[in-house]
């Protein structure tokens, strides 16, 4: 099964009158056999491995594209082009429909999903799928279709999607699908957070059932050497150390271990990470638009305004350090709700 169908019927959603040129396929990753020695697989046992991407994605953009705290928040295409705005919003949309798309809503949703993928897997890969008219073949729209990065392999400069045999046979698919590099959009972590893999590797080892197992093993022993409280404290210290560069604290304040000042400092570090991630995603998205736009005879870029910036974080850190601002007011500056 080496041949790849020229046209795989994409999930057409509401666009049944278009033909998609999608190459990648979707399948449940759990069906994929674990491959030995693969660096794309992580032993995701700990709870932090799932909560870290979720927390990050919730902080990256206002939920639903609206923010009461951020009256100036705006997502736009510059220069403005209403028709292309609908095409871009539709391309980013997770759910497709016949009525008009709200660009801010779709962009925010996309950032949530993309941010979660980057933080969980180190990369987020999307395929640019053209939607052409069935009869004329004219390009009318496009979609960004997510590909599970764990299904991808790079061989001799070419990227392949690996489909498990069972799934491939059942759906009459090849087990190796070559993907065109120029149709892929690859979102990476910001350069300032290049150690995201290390962070994830450490998080996978934390927050697991080890504490419970140790407790169970020793609870009936008299004069037991084991101190569950110290174990929990050590785990939290390890969590804090592993996430030092990104400031994430596992959804806890950790004030039982650290001073409030330091927890607020970490919060600002986390804001810096999230803003860097947002900027990295935006930059990649705009590079994608630079590639796609000419096909629609448009040259527009996405712009996001009214959200905290890296300069805001730097200023807040200075003010926090000098004791010039109340803690609450510093926190208020970064809320997206």
């Amino acid at each position, binding site marked *: 099964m080496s041949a790849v169908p020229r046209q795989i019927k994409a999930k057409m959603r509401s666009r049944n009158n278009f033909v998609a040129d999608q190459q990648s396929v979707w399948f449940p990753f759990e069906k994929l056999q674990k491959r030995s020695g693969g660096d794309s697989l992580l032993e995701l046992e700990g709870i932090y491995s799932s909560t870290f991407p979720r927390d990050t994605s919730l902080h990256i953009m206002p939920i639903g594209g609206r923010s009461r705290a951020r009256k100036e928040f705006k997502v736009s295409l510059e220069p403005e082009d209403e028709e292309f705005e609908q095409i871009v919003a539709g391309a980013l949309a997770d759910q497709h429909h016949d009525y008009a798309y709200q660009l801010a809503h779709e962009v925010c949703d996309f950032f949530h999903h993309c941010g979660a993928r980057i933080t969980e897997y180190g990369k987020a890969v999307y395929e640019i799928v053209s939607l052409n008219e069935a009869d004329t073949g004219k390009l009318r729209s496009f979609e960004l279709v997510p590909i599970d990065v764990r299904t991808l392999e790079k061989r001799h400069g070419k990227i392949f999607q690996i489909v498990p045999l069972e799934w491939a046979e059942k759906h009459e698919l090849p087990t190796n699908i070559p993907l065109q590099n120029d149709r892929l959009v690859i979102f990476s972590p910001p350069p300032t957070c290049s150690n995201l893999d290390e962070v994830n590797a450490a998080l996978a080892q934390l927050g697991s059932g080890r504490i419970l197992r140790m407790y169970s093993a020793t609870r009936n022993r008299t004069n037991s050497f084991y101190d569950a409280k110290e174990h929990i404290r050590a785990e939290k210290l390890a969590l804090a150390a592993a996430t030092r560069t990104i400031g994430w604290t596992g959804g806890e304040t950790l004030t039982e271990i650290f001073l409030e000042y330091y927890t607020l*400092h970490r919060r600002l570090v986390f804001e810096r990470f999230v803003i860097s991630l947002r900027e990295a995603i935006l930059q990649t998205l705009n590079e994608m638009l630079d590639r796609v736009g000419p096909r629609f005879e448009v040259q527009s870029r996405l712009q996001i305004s009214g959200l905290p910036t890296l300069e805001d974080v730097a200023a807040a850190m200075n003010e926090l350090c000098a004791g010039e601002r109340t803690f609450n007011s510093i926190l208020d500056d970064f809320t997206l709700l």
Partner: protein
Amino acid sequence: MIYSAQLPRAVLSEAESISKSLRAEELVEKRVITPEWYVSQLLARQFVDFIKSNCVTLIAELEQTLISKLPDYQKAHRDLFAAQIISSAIEMCGKLRAHLPTIRVCVDGLDAVRKVRDIPWVEIDWKALGEKIEAVHKKLMLAAASILPRLEQIPGSRHWPEYFGQLYSFLARESFFSMARGDEELFTKTFPPLFASSILANQKLREQLKDRDSRMMLAWSSGPIEDIVALSGYAMLFSELDGKAFYEVVTKTWDAYLTGFEDPTGPLKAVTATLEYRTGDFFMPARDLERTTWQQNFERLLRDRGILQDRYGSFRRIEKPVHPSPLIQEVARAGMMMEHAADFFLVDYVMPRLKGADVTYPYTARNLARSLSRNERSATADKSKDEIAK
């Protein structure tokens, strides 16, 4: 290092906790991120909390441990026990009153360390603390007034302190300051027993000192009588000054005392003679110092109210009366330097009752009487001129 700072236990616990947190921070970051000012603020907050809890605890102890037992002792007439408690509690109140301003300055200094205002801070209600101490103090004075006459009857012993003299001294001072504060209730309840006790004290001292030099005996034994006459004079002045009923309490007490005598002029003559003798006597027993304190306080109060000018300032004519009362005007005119509060009582209460008697009044009282009479005549003349002019 924190152990060499000799911090109170509560603050040291906080310092230990902060130190542990900083070590954890260093473990994670390989350096300490938290700045020094934040640590100082946390410690200062703990210090303020420590000070507050101690002040509150001390006052609570005062109320619960000492004051709560007083009513039972008073009811059972266990006056020595009551006197011991009153004596200790008054000392404690005095120390708290004296140190509270210093503590407040210390807390204000710690407050200056507070850099970020939304970090929880401990607030101290100084007014409430002060009021609590004053309330306890008042209770103590009322209790002292109730047992003072009975204490005089307990024979002295080397096994316990001289409680009568101690409580008498406290009460005499409180009588003066209750007037200065305008506390009619306290004065009404403390002056009559103090009056009775001063008579008893005078008799007791004369008995105790009968074998001593007569000059010394008179100087020491007349102290309580001089106190009560001075307080009577201040009662008159404070009543004029603030429109309070202190002087009414005083005259009623004197009237009640004098009705017990077949010849009521007798005690008044004795008091006058004593004061006349003491005015020219340079011997200065302890009670004289106490009365000097009252006089200085009264002067300060008048000066604070703008009634009395600087006593060392140049003479200037007072164009406008500083107070409607002729007595206060007289004080403002002459100053209190050479006047004794007792003279006002002698002029107003004693002189009319000893009219025609062969009595020599202290020269200060005579001067005051002349001055008041001159002022009265002058005022009457001015009034007549005004009426003629009309």
